[in-house]
């Protein structure tokens, strides 16, 4: 795997909010065609990290390189122009409008003056159908409201949208949370299909180590704003994952703690 150049390199990233240090020197590399699972407990700094990567916050210190070039994002637009597509937990979808209208929201194909250009619905519908099919969902009617789709389908729509609009680095923020078993599998299948496209690097943020083990190639564990462990999927044992997930505490200690609760 080391023969590839990382698509995104993060080196000693620091983010401070006033006196609070959210990230204290985080480093990680993500390679094309790989899923990099980012795990950690609540408050570990996962959300801050993706917000810095997607341009919502500016880093206090440290270096981010995309495709070998150093970048400093000032807005989400700049990050997405650089090829970082973030799929948030709420998916940024409008349930009341159609699949196509959501797919192209903010980037509509149009003819005419400025915002009053006429949308080319036919072309947009075709592209939506095609792109959704590429990563595994065959929608019958691109004019159906997003509200009628299942959670898994919505996740797929958001991912397809990010990829179509040039995301080389896809950040998935807890894509399997708040979904039923079957839909979680649907999403993981989608992640696998995107991985198989080969040219896209995926950062998968999750609480669920089972899901992470199913699709991830590399792991990075965060705790209190620092990396407490990382490695290839093949190198990590199940107990390591559990221990690191819990922020470095031994799982045996946790069991003991529980026993002491009366």
């Amino acid at each position, binding site marked *: 795997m080391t023969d590839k150049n990382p698509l995104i390199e993060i080196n000693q990233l620091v983010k401070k909010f006033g006196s609070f240090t959210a990230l204290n020197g985080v480093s990680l590399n993500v390679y094309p065609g790989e899923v990099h699972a980012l795990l950690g407990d609540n408050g570990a700094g996962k959300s801050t990290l993706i917000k810095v990567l997607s341009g919502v916050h500016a880093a206090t210190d440290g270096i981010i390189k995309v495709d070998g070039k150093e970048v400093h994002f000032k807005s989400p637009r700049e990050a997405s122009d650089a090829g970082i597509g973030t799929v948030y937990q709420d998916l940024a979808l409008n349930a009341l409008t159609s699949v196509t209208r959501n797919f192209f929201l903010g980037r509509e194909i149009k003819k005419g003056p400025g915002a009053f250009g*006429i*949308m080319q619905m036919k072309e947009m519908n075709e592209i939506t159908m095609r792109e959704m099919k590429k990563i595994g969902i065959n929608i019958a009617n691109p004019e159906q409201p997003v509200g009628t789709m299942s959670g898994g389908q919505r996740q797929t729509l958001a991912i397809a949208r990010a990829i179509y609009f040039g995301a080389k680095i896809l950040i998935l923020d807890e894509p399997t949370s708040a979904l039923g078993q079957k839909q979680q599998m649907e999403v993981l299948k989608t992640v696998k299909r995107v991985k198989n496209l080969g040219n896209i690097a995926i950062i998968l943020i999750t609480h669920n180590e089972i899901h992470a083990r199913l699709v991830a190639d590399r792991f990075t564990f965060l705790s209190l704003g620092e990396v407490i462990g990382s490695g290839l999927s093949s190198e990590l044992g199940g107990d390591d994952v559990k221990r690191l997930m819990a922020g470095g505490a031994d799982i045996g200690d946790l069991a003991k703690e529980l026993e002491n609760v009366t």
Partner: protein
Amino acid sequence: MNSKSVNQPRKESDRHDAKRWYSAILARPEVGPVGVMLLLFGMLGYFSIPSGEFSLNPFSGEGFNALAIRNNLRVISQLGIVAMGAGLLIISGEFDLSIGSMIGFAGGVMAMILRWGFAVVIPYVSFEGGIHIETFTLFKITDVSPLLAVSITLCFTLFFGWLQGFIIVRSGLASFIVTLGGLFFLRGLTEIIYRAFNKRPDQTAGSTTVTEIPDIKNIVNVPGHGELEREVAKSLPQADLLELLKTIPETTVLKITEKLTYINESVAASKNLLLKNKGVKGLEKSLENALSSGNEGMVAILQDKIANFQVEITSPRIVSDVDIAKEYIDTLHSARPVANFFGGDIIEPVFDWLYFTVNWNVNNYGNQFADGLYSCLMIWFLLALICYVVLSKTQAGNWIYSTGGNLNAAKANGVPTNKVKVSLFMFSAFCATMFAACQVFETNTADTSKGNLKELEAIAAAVIGGVVLTGGFGTVVGIIVGAAIFGISKEAFFYIPYFDGSFYRVFLGIVLLASALANENIRKRVIGSV
């Protein structure tokens, strides 16, 4: 293990029953409102049929004669204009309570500019002869054209629309409270402006009504006399009118003569019919009395009289040269197209055709009932057409829906949601200004209370038309239907005999509530939770 083994695994989509054709129709947001609208039109038609007559066709009622159509459509389209602004704004997730005050403000500003002119005055503090405030007049235009008056008014109203929108998106305050402030502020400002400026130099306090605005839309270019109001031109001395007649081409004179002859004949025929009916009615009453008293001789005489009843036949008036000249002045085009655009009539040829050819647009006295439709209908139609294209076909439309449907999603996808909202607040102010322009140029007056409560009527019309108050859901067709329902119920209830006219408000209250419930249901249907 107790599980079924099936050849075909059950898919997620199998859980949704295929939609039947009627449930597909019922999921359209416009269905309910269209039904109510048709009901109201039926009511208006049926109850406006004069008592004692019977007709299977409800549209033969007096609610549908030419004049009633003209008046009903005015009520509907004026409300429709402001409902369009209010509706689009609600779809984007905000709403505007200042529409009514904006109408009053715009009407006042426009009317006062037309009446008194427009000046930019800079006040400054003077120290000569004690400290006091003096004013310096930068420039003053006394004879402001209609276009300029509307443009200046738009500058003010669009500014206030922008300001309200700006405050709302910047502060994050609810639009309810900000525009409620706008409602009070603008109404108060309007009253102050009236008292301060709507007066002659020798008067101390201004009046709250602007009058004496010339009938601008009816200014015509009379050959040999220059620009004159139609009525003034028609009351020129006879000699002048006869002089004017000489400038009219022969063919036009013939056409006008033919027209006037038709009108005079129609008037005479109607008069004869009226007199005859009147006379026969008296005789029939006498006959009734004679029958009840058993005076057989009298009955025979009266029956004979009724059968051979004759009135003194009025013969049609002869078309005089002065009549032709006056009619010619009526046919001249307005010399002020902008004023005519807002306050004039439209499709007069159609209404002429209905009178001269179809013989339908005739009142009891044989004259033409309505000259045309009010031009606000056209303005409403144009606005609605533009809104329809923008909302359902353009990028801006998708932005409006997403701003109201899921604000964070829209922001995350790079939609300039603040710009969308501020633009729509300005559009709402624009619609209010159009409403005011239609009123001012049509009636040539304005007063401080104009547009009162229109903001709530506009919101109600939009909600009745299927717009959901929380945003993201609604259509232009729905808003049009909503305005039609609101406007027509105002009229229809007055035609129901023994019925208090105010029942229309009771009715509208129920319709509004039912619509809001139905809208919520349809919204859930669309997002699949029903």
